[in-house]
C-alpha cells in the first residue's frame, strides 16, 4: 500500500497498462503525470513544444502500434483541439489516452473550462476517477476501452484529484502487444474519406452507449435514506461526506452516459439531485433524455470548486460558515517574484519607459502587479506578440511584447514571423530564464536537456530570430538595469521588428541555488529613506519603521536594490 496523489496514480496505471510512449506539455495540475511516467524505464516520455505537437506525436505512436498517452491541462486541449476533433474519425490503432486536467477554482489557470464538452463535440468517451486508487484503475480501463472501440479516450482529472494523496495498491506491468499499422488510406487519410468515416463515428458512438450501460465504473451505492443523488469524480467524495446514507449513482464514465440506467434510477425518486463540479453537463444530458425530476446547478454553483460545505448547503440550505475576515485584518497574500528573479530587471525598465506592454503566461505575468504594473494585457500562451501587432495596427506606437522562453517556443514564434512578414515594428522581450518556471522547472527545447535527463540540442534564439528576418537582436543581462533599459529603448527606436533577449537563469534552478552569493545590506546612516529601493518589489527587502532592511537569508545578491539606491546606501555585505 502506498500513499499517492491522483497524478502519481495515473502514471502508475498507465505504466501497468503497458504504455510505451507518452508526450505532453507542462500545465498545472497535469504536469506530474508525465514527470512520474518518465521515471519508469520502460516508458519513452518527453516534453513536446506544445500540446498540439504532443498530441500528434502520441497519436502517431498509437497509429504506429504503441500504447500511448498525451498529458495537458484544460487550456492545453484548446491548443490540441484540431487533432482531437479529427482523430476520432479515423480511430486509433493501439490504445490512446488523452489526460486532460481541469482546474475548477482557477488555482493556477487563466480560466475555468469544463473539458467534458470538448469530448462530447469530438464524440470521444470520458472516464473520470474519484480518488487515487480509482485513478490507477481507470487509466488502465481507458487503454482497454480505447483499443476495444479504436477510439481516443479522455481521462478527465481536476486539481483536487491530481493533488490529493490517498492509498493505492500498486500492481505489475503487463506489456501490451504492438499492433502493426496497416496502410489503409481510406481509414487514415481523413479529408478525402471523411464522409464515410463520419457515418462510422455515429455507429461507434451507438456501441459506446451500449458499453456505458455495462461499465463497472458506473455504480450505485444503495443507501438507507430516501434521497437520490447522481454525481461523479471528486464531488462524489463531498456527497458521501455530507450524506453517507443517501442512494448515490456515481458516474465513472461521463460520456456517453448510461441512459437506461439513469432513467431507471431517477424513476425511483421524486427528486434527484445532480451534484457536479463546473458546468451542468450531466444535468443537461439528463434533460436531453427527457428526465425532468432533477435539481442541479440551481443549487450547486458552476463557479469555482465545490466542497463538502457547498454540497451540504445545496442539499439542506444550511449556510456556509464564513471565515474571520470581517472581524480581523486577514491580509491577502498574493504570490511574488522570487528574490533575485531575473524578470524583475525587465519590469523595472518597462515601467520607466512607460510603454504599453502586452504580456504572456508564465511567472512574469506577475509583472502586472505593484510595484511594477508593467504588463497591461495577458490572455493565453503565445498571445503577446500577435496582440502587440494588433495594437500597432490600431495606432499605438510604442508597444512591447514580453514573453518567456518556454512560451515563445510553445506558440510565440508564429506571431513573430507574422510581425516580420507584415512589417510591424514590434519590440519583443524574450525572457530567457532557461526553464519553464511557472509550472515547476520543466526542461524545454531551449534548455539543452530532456525530460529523461539526457542532453539535447538547445535552440539558438539569436540565430532563429535572425533567420526569420528580425534584424535588430540584442542580448542583455536583466540584472544590469541600465543596459536592460537602454536595450529596450534601442529596440523601440529601431524602425522594424526588434528582439531583446534578457538572459539569466531562474534563481530556483539547482545550478543557481548551489552558487554562493554575497547578500547585500543597508547602511542605515547613509539611507535617505526615499523608498526607491522598494520599487524593486523584492521579498528579501522589508520596510521597518526607520528604513529598509534586507533579509540576508533570502537575498541572493542580484544588486537590483543597490542599483536603484540614489545614494549608494545599499552595499554588498562583505564591504559593509
Amino acid at each position: 500500500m502506498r500513499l499517492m496523489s491522483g497524478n502519481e496514480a495515473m502514471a502508475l496505471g498507465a505504466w501497468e497498462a503497458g504504455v510505451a510512449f507518452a508526450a505532453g506539455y507542462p500545465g498545472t495540475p497535469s504536469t506530474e503525470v508525465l514527470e512520474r511516467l518518465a521515471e519508469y524505464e520502460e516508458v519513452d516520455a518527453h516534453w513536446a513544444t506544445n500540446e498540439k505537437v504532443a498530441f500528434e506525436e502520441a497519436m502517431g505512436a498509437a497509429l504506429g502500434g504503441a500504447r500511448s498517452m498525451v498529458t495537458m491541462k484544460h487550456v492545453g486541449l484548446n491548443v490540441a483541439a484540431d487533432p482531437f476533433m479529427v482523430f476520432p474519425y479515423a480511430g486509433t490503432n493501439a490504445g490512446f489516452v488523452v489526460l486532460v486536467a481541469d482546474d475548477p477554482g482557477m488555482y493556477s489557470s487563466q480560466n475555468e473550462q469544463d473539458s467534458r464538452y470538448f469530448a462530447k463535440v469530438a464524440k470521444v468517451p470520458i472516464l473520470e476517477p474519484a480518488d487515487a486508487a480509482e485513478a490507477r484503475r481507470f487509466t488502465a480501463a481507458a487503454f482497454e476501452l480505447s483499443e476495444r472501440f479504436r477510439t481516443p479516450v479522455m481521462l478527465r482529472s481536476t486539481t483536487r484529484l491530481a493533488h490529493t494523496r490517498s492509498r493505492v495498491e500498486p500492481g505489475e506491468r503487463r506489456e501490451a502487444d504492438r499492433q502493426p499499422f496497416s496502410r489503409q488510406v481510406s481509414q487514415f487519410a481523413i479529408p478525402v474519406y471523411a464522409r464515410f468515416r463520419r457515418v462510422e463515428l455515429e455507429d461507434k458512438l451507438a456501441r459506446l452507449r451500449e458499453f456505458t450501460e455495462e461499465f463497472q465504473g458506473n455504480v450505485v451505492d444503495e443507501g438507507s435514506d430516501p434521497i437520490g443523488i447522481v454525481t461523479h469524480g471528486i464531488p462524489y467524495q463531498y456527497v458521501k461526506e455530507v450524506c453517507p446514507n443517501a442512494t448515490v449513482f456515481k458516474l465513472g464514465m461521463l460520456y456517453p452516459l448510461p441512459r437506461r440506467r439513469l432513467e431507471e434510477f431517477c424513476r425511483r425518486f421524486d427528486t434527484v439531485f445532480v451534484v457536479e463540479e463546473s458546468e451542468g453537463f450531466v444535468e443537461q444530458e439528463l434533460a436531453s433524455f427527457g428526465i425532468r425530476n432533477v435539481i442541479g446547478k440551481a443549487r450547486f454553483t458552476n463557479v469555482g470548486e465545490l466542497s463538502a460545505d457547498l454540497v451540504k448547503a445545496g442539499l439542506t440550505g444550511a449556510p456556509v460558515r464564513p471565515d474571520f475576515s470581517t472581524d480581523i485584518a486577514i491580509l491577502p497574500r498574493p504570490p511574488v517574484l522570487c528574490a533575485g528573479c531575473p524578470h524583475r530587471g525587465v519590469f523595472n525598465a518597462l515601467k520607466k519607459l512607460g510603454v504599453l506592454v502586452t504580456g504572456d503566461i508564465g511567472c512574469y505575468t506577475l509583472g502586472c502587479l505593484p510595484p511594477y504594473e508593467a504588463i497591461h494585457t495577458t490572455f493565453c500562451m503565445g498571445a503577446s506578440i500577435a496582440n502587440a501587432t494588433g495594437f500597432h495596427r490600431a495606432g499605438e506606437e510604442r508597444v512591447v511584447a514580453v514573453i518567456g522562453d518556454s512560451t515563445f517556443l510553445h506558440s510565440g514564434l508564429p506571431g513573430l514571423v507574422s510581425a516580420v512578414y507584415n512589417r510591424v515594428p514590434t519590440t519583443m522581450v524574450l525572457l530567457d530564464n532557461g526553464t519553464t518556471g511557472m509550472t515547476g522547472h520543466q526542461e524545454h527545447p531551449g534548455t539543452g536537456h530532456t525530460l529523461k535527463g539526457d542532453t539535447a540540442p538547445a535552440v539558438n534564439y539569436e540565430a532563429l530570430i535572425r533567420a526569420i528576418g528580425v534584424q535588430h537582436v540584442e542580448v542583455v543581462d536583466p540584472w544590469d538595469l541600465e543596459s536592460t533599459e537602454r536595450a529596450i529603448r534601442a529596440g523601440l527606436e529601431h524602425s522594424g521588428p526588434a528582439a531583446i533577449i534578457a538572459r539569466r537563469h531562474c534563481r530556483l534552478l539547482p545550478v543557481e541555488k548551489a552558487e554562493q552569493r554575497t547578500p547585500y545590506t543597508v547602511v542605515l546612516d547613509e539611507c535617505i529613506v526615499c523608498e526607491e529601493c522598494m520599487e524593486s518589489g523584492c521579498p528579501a527587502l522589508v520596510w521597518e519603521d526607520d528604513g529598509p532592511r534586507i533579509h540576508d537569508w533570502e537575498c541572493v545578491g542580484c544588486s537590483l536594490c543597490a542599483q536603484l539606491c540614489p545614494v549608494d546606501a545599499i552595499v554588498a555585505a562583505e564591504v559593509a
Partner: protein
Amino acid sequence: MPVTNVLIAGVGGQGTILASELLAMAAMTAGYDVKQGEFHGVAQRGGSVFSHVRFGERVYSPMAPRGSVDYMLALEQLEALRYAHFVKPTGTVLVNDHRVEPIRVADERPYPENAMGFLGQQGFRVVMLDATRTALELGNYRAANAVLLGALAEFLEIPGEVWERTLEERVPTRLLELNRRAFAAGRTALTRAGGSTALPDATSSSP
C-alpha cells in the same frame, strides 16, 4: 470511529506540504485510511499554502468541512487567521511565533497585532511555539515545519517508531538528522508550553 482532521497552513517555501505528507504517511502506516489534500496557487511563489490531512476508518472529502478541524498547525500567524474558520469550537491551534509580511496589493491595513488573542477569544486552545527560532538554533530555519509536527505528535496516537520510520523514508538523507532533532524539540517544547496529554479531547481516535 471519528475521522481526525488536521489543517497545516503556511507561506510558500515553509514546508507546509512536506509536513502534511509526513503526517499522512505516518497515519497510513499506523493503519488508518487517509486523505491529504493540498491547496496552493501558481507554483507557490510566496503565496498562501494550506493542506488538509484527514485520517480514520474511512475518509471521503479531501478537505475537512469548515468547523471540523481538530488540530491546526500554522507556520505563520496571518495564515493561522486565514484558515481558523475550519477549526472546530474546541479545536487546538499550534502556531509558530513568526510573521511574514505579505506584499501589498491595494490593502494598506497593518499586519494584525493580536492574532493569538483573537484566536483565544474564539474558544480555541492556542499554543504558541517558537518553531522558527528553535529550527534556526538547530541549524536551519526551514525545519520549523518539523518542530510543529513534533508538537502535534504529542496529541496523536501514532507510535513513535512510526514517526521515526516515516521521517527516514521521506526526508532526504542530508536533512534527516536536522529534522529528527527538530521533531524531538517540538515534542518537548509542547510539554513545556503547557502539555497536551492531560487534554480530554486530545486524542479522539485510535487505529
